[in-house]
């Protein structure tokens, strides 16, 4: 029997996360309510350890392993590093929120780590089977996390919607993959890519492409497959919303790159048209509907939809600079979204959810510093110069113009200008309105420190965007 031991070293971070998740699952059984922090600390150290392992074994060029179902390359490693970072921030922000709501349980962290593992698998996938399994691992963990607050009707409703629509999307994706397999006879992404470029591509592959794009758009939350986003963001406990809105977007971006660019680059002219429709609709619906919202989590959900539209603009240019721009956009969006939902977590306290936009009224009187941090985040999301979000938008627009799609860039700018309205409204409420609720913000050292760092980071990276931009370009060229 011919059997070569697979090259396990390239998958060390994945194996570490899996082992730590299983260890934490067991350790948590023996902890009491008072010593539950051990679970939290172990989870954070698992993420740190995985980051160290990923960065120390980092190498240029790509390595395949496990019969080519796994790929380790520079762009994957960079995306994984940002997944660890944002999950680390999520756990940090969520801690006190979970504690006062009786949700501070081991399951949150174990499921979170399994979701991280799913994202890592998606980022490193080189086979339709691993793309799908990674996605399912991520989604299953997320469904359970949304439903974790069992006594809340809203959370149950959100979990139900998320589960049914997510299952539908997975079904679509799987159907597309099965047709692709039927047409090319292979599950391997580079083999499929080779088949499409050498052989005359058939109608079946285009048909398969439609289903794959639909599946990816569902997971990103692009219009017209966005219906779940506002309901899930609003219904889920804010700590879980924080998680859904951050790291999984990086994984969804990676999935899009792996499937469309690595696997189906031969059909670029086809998916380009589909993505144009999706992104223009997302920009329009996201920005226009966000204006009408009174709930901050719903407003941020619609803002997510518009950001996903922008992200797809970068991908549809079809150039490696365009992909780099989209990657830059994804990473900056994740950092901004973390800070924005982190603010919602900060203002919530026992028995009170700062979910209404009006809860931000007069924040400047209650805490001038956090009003300033929120202003940074809102300016950055709106794309005001010197903040990170501005460079992300500029980078995408530049590549669009470069690819000869100036009209699309103009559309994107128009909708961004419309979008500025609802971001500025938050700033107006914070600085020019009287506070309805004068209670001071609860003391919480690590949350305050991390959130301040996040806000200042958005400004600092906006002033010096060069290194992140260079990093994104270097992994794609």
């Amino acid at each position, binding site marked *: 029997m011919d059997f070569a031991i697979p090259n396990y070293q390239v998958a060390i971070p994945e194996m570490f996360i899996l082992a730590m998740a299983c260890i934490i699952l067991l350790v948590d059984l023996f902890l009491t309510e008072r010593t539950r922090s051990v679970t939290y600390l172990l989870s954070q150290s698992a993420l740190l350890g995985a980051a160290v392992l990923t960065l120390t074994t980092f190498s240029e060029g790509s390595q395949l392993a496990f019969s080519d179902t796994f790929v380790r390359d520079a762009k994957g490693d960079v995306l994984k590093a940002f997944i660890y970072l944002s999950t680390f921030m999520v756990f940090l922000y969520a801690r006190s929120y979970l504690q006062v709501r009786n949700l501070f349980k081991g399951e949150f962290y174990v499921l979170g780590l399994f979701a991280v593992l799913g994202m890592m698998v998606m980022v490193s996938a080189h086979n339709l*089977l691993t793309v799908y399994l990674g996605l399912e691992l991520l989604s299953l963990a997320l469904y359970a996390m949304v439903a974790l607050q069992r006594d809340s009707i809203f959370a149950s409703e959100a979990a139900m919607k998320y589960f049914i629509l997510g299952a539908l999307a997975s079904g679509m994706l799987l159907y597309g993959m099965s047709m692709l397999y039927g047409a090319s006879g292979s599950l391997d992404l580079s083999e499929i890519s080779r088949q499409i470029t050498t052989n005359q591509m058939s109608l079946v592959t285009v048909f398969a492409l439609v289903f794959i794009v639909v599946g990816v758009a569902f997971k990103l939350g692009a219009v017209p497959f966005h219906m779940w986003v506002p309901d899930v963001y609003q219904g889920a406990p804010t700590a879980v919303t924080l998680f859904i809105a951050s790291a999984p977007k990086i994984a969804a971006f990676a999935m899009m790159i792996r499937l469309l660019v690595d696997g189906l680059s031969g059909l670029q002219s086809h998916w380009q048209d589909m993505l144009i429709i999706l992104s223009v609709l997302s920009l329009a619906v996201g920005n226009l509907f966000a204006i009408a919202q009174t709930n901050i989590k719903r407003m941020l959900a619609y803002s997510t939809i518009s950001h996903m539209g922008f992200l797809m603009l970068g991908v549809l240019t079809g150039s490696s600079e365009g992909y780099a721009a989209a990657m830059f956009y994804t990473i900056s969006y994740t950092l901004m979204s973390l800070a924005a939902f982190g603010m919602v977590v900060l203002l919530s306290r026992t028995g009170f959810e700062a979910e209404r936009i009006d809860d931000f009224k007069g924040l400047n009187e209650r805490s001038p510093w956090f009003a300033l941090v929120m202003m940074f985040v809102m300016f950055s999301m709106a794309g005001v110069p010197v903040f990170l979000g501005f460079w992300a938008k500029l980078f995408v627009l530049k590549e669009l113009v470069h690819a000869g799609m100036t009209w699309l860039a103009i559309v994107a700018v128009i909708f961004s200008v419309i979008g500025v309205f609802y971001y500025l409204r938050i700033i107006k409420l914070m600085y020019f309105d009287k506070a309805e609720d004068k209670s001071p913000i609860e003391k919480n050292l690590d949350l305050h420190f991390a959130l301040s760092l996040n806000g200042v980071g958005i400004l600092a990276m906006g002033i010096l965007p060069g290194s992140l931009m260079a990093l994104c370009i270097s992994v794609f060229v």
Partner: protein
Amino acid sequence: MGFEQIVFYVFSATLLFAGTMVITVRNPVHAAMFLVLAFFSSSALWLLLEAEFLAIVLVLVYVGAVMVLFLFVVMMLDINLIPLREGFMRYLPVGVMIALVVIAMMAYVVGSEFSGHSIPARHGADYNNIAELGRILYTDYVYPFELAAVILLVAIIAAISLTLRRRPMVKHQDPDAQVKVKKEDRLRVVKMDAEKNN
């Protein structure tokens, strides 16, 4: 007619009979039992095709697990089946149409598949398809296989964390205490003077 053909016809006939009985008997428990028979005879057909793995899995998974669960549900729910049987004539045209479409599709697939191909060659007696499947699953597909295992683990964690809750008000048995109980805990011997009967 060789021995193999006799075996084939016997099991096929049993399969068809069992299949018909599943949809015609009135008692749902009997229907479930006939379904077990149908699974069993089709697993014998798989064996005849030298697909041992499928045959064993069909018996283990479907007969051993799925049908037992199914019987549990049927017995526990005590469904009244008479309303379900109403409107047979009303649904007949749709049913016949679906059956015809399925037959046409099968004819299309089977016809096109085997028109140009010959029947695959038989392997020797020492060929073991369980070993072959295992070899591929644990070498070429070890990574997806392990991922599938992790997904199942996550499903278990999710199901337990969503359903397990301690409810202090519920009365339940404690077998440990039941076993440890002594005569003195339950029985109180009361000494009484015998009643005088005049």
